[in-house]
């Protein structure tokens, strides 16, 4: 195929990309440089909308919550997924098929629905979690999980982990099954136990998968919105505020389009930075 023909085939996709990705992004960047009043564009504001972020305590709280979310996601679903995948990989194909499908089910549930389900589980009056704790004699551990600043973000992260760990299991499982079995056989001959094989063979050889999942989780942690909105709307207070909910409130509820656009540009920059790191790290392998 000639270069000319190739470019003709590429052109429609490029036009769509420019129309629906590049231009809207440029538009948001443009919006962030102006003052707005009730959705009506006003005077050129330069970088003043960006300067406001320095003194916006809600912005910094939201950013820190996104960062905590990234760390918690890397700590729990990835580790749980890795461990479960390593255990599952040694079972027969029937068990692997069924268990990986079961683990993957939460991933197929939309976050809005997951939020509603877990909202009921966490409900302080008639929630399942408190009921179960009381049933097993742990009534002292019951709490208003999403209503207390100390537990709200962590409780929401459990929901996020619930929807994500199955995905980690499937990715890790596929990667483990592609490891040459002779490596494990050689280790067994040398007397290595399950833990040693896991630590010295499985974990190092899954570095690429771990990198992919980690960066994917980090990007998702910056973008998520629906789970927070249907459960806490960022509350109580600002305890579960994240960048996307702050942007939504600033744009739709306050109507401060300029500042919301500036916040969106910062969020976009963070996600693009993570994506770039991910791209270069994965290509370097």
């Amino acid at each position, binding site marked *: 195929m000639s270069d000319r023909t190739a470019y003709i085939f590429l052109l429609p996709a490029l036009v769509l990309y420019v129309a629906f990705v590049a231009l809207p992004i440029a538009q948001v960047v443009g919006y962030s440089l102006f003052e707005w*009043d*009730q*959705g*009506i564009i006003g005077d050129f504001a330069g970088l003043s909308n960006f300067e406001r972020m320095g003194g916006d305590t809600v912005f910094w709280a939201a950013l820190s919550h996104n960062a905590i979310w990234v760390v918690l996601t890397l700590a729990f679903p990835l580790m749980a997924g890795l461990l479960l995948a390593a255990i599952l990989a040694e079972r027969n194909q029937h068990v692997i098929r069924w268990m990986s499908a079961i683990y993957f089910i939460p991933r197929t549930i939309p976050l809005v629905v997951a939020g509603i389900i877990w909202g009921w589980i*966490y*409900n*302080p*009056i008639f929630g399942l979690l408190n009921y179960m704790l009381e049933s097993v004699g742990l009534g002292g551990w019951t*709490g*208003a*999980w*999403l*209503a*207390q*600043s100390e537990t709200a973000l962590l409780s929401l992260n459990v929901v996020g982990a619930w929807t994500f760990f199955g995905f980690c299991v499937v990715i890790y499982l596929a990667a483990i099954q592609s490891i040459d079995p002779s490596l494990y056989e050689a280790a067994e001959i040398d007397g290595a136990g399950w833990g040693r094989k896991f630590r010295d063979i499985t974990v190092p050889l899954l570095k690429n998968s771990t990198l992919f999942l980690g960066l994917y989780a980090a990007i998702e942690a910056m973008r998520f919105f629906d789970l927070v909105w249907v459960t*806490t*709307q*960022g*509350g*109580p*207070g*600002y305890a579960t*505020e994240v960048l996307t909910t702050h942007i939504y*409130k*600033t744009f*739709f*509820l*306050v*109507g*401060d*389009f300029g500042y919301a656009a500036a916040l969106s540009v910062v969020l976009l920059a963070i996600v693009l930075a993570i994506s770039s790191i991910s791209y270069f790290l994965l290509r370097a392998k």
Partner: protein
Amino acid sequence: MKTILALATGLTVASTATAETIVTQWDQFAQSGISAAGPAMDELIATCQPSLGGATILRTIAPSIGIRDSYRLAVSAGKTPDLAYTWPAASVLAGYARVGALALLDSYYEQYGWDHVNDFYRGRNSHDGHLYALPMEQDLMGVYYNKALFAEHGVELPTTYAEFQAAAETFKAAGIIPVSFGNRDRWPATNTFSLILGLTAGLEAEQAVLFGDEPWTNPAFKQAAETFQAWANDEYFPRGFNGVGYDEANALFLSGRAAMTITGTWVLQDMIRGAERIDLGVFMLPPIADGVPAGTMWGEGSQWQMSASADQAVKDAAAAYLDCLTSDASRQVWVEKGHTVPIGTTPDELAEWGADPIVQEFFAAGLATPDSNFYDLHTTLPESVTQVLYPELQRLVGGEVTADEFLAAMQASWETAIANGERWIP
């Protein structure tokens, strides 16, 4: 009389409106929930449309919570409907008027004599001395209570704040939730706090802050904030109330597990329909601070506003239509089929039209104090302040901040809003 005038006006409209005149309308009248006046809206369009000289009403229903967001986007895009029944009035309405998105209604008020809208409501629907909307729904705040639980525990209806506190303590001691309250949705606390504030500071003190130079950090406001926090600390509310939804709190009350719930007339229909297992009653919360007169929080549920960019013929047809919607005959339809009480409706009319006894009781009590009724904060403050009020109230009742810290945060937000020209003054 007003119906006859409306029909006569229809003849006037006929001279300008034609069969091609279409009035696009956004409203929030669904078949159930907070704004369950859909059947009344359907009937009134059928009733009013023939008198519009051939003009047609093209209706779109939007959710009551989402309609304000949709309207904001429409203003931004210059695509507002000719007529919208949306909320809130006061600061937000004034903002739209300020940027020229809304049509002036002064001449229509004069032409149709919409005198049922009193000065309080006219002020809330004005900007810079001109009227920009016609408020319709009458919202009042009160205390729904379970008569059987009150009787069972020997509690009389509270006529003083001390009696209210004693009633709450009695129920708490009996293992019954005194006041069902859920604030996961963030806005319910603003209504409760607005009520406490009005009964602690009074209308004049509120106006000194909202329209004058008095700061939020004044002693009366501090007492109100401390009172609200004390209710939470004293366990008047269910456990984990910041994680309980508004509907769940209402359900908790209707299930008989709570003695009272403090909310507004906007859920009267749901309350009446859901009160199969309880004997429902209503009373007004007594004044909290000494010397403050009895009263309640009132406001328009929503208001009709017209697009500035609509053609003159469309505006004229829309105004005639609004006059028909708010006529005496139409108000009866709103009450009977919409379970909505329009502004200007008297307790006598409610009795005459056979409204549910709870509706009559609520409005008789709430409309008895027109001179001391006060503001609902979250439909009065600029949105930028409301978005601080919501989380800060969650923190206040959650015990995360003191009354002083809460008021300092409000004052800071208030000063920023004033500096940005967002404050509404009637």
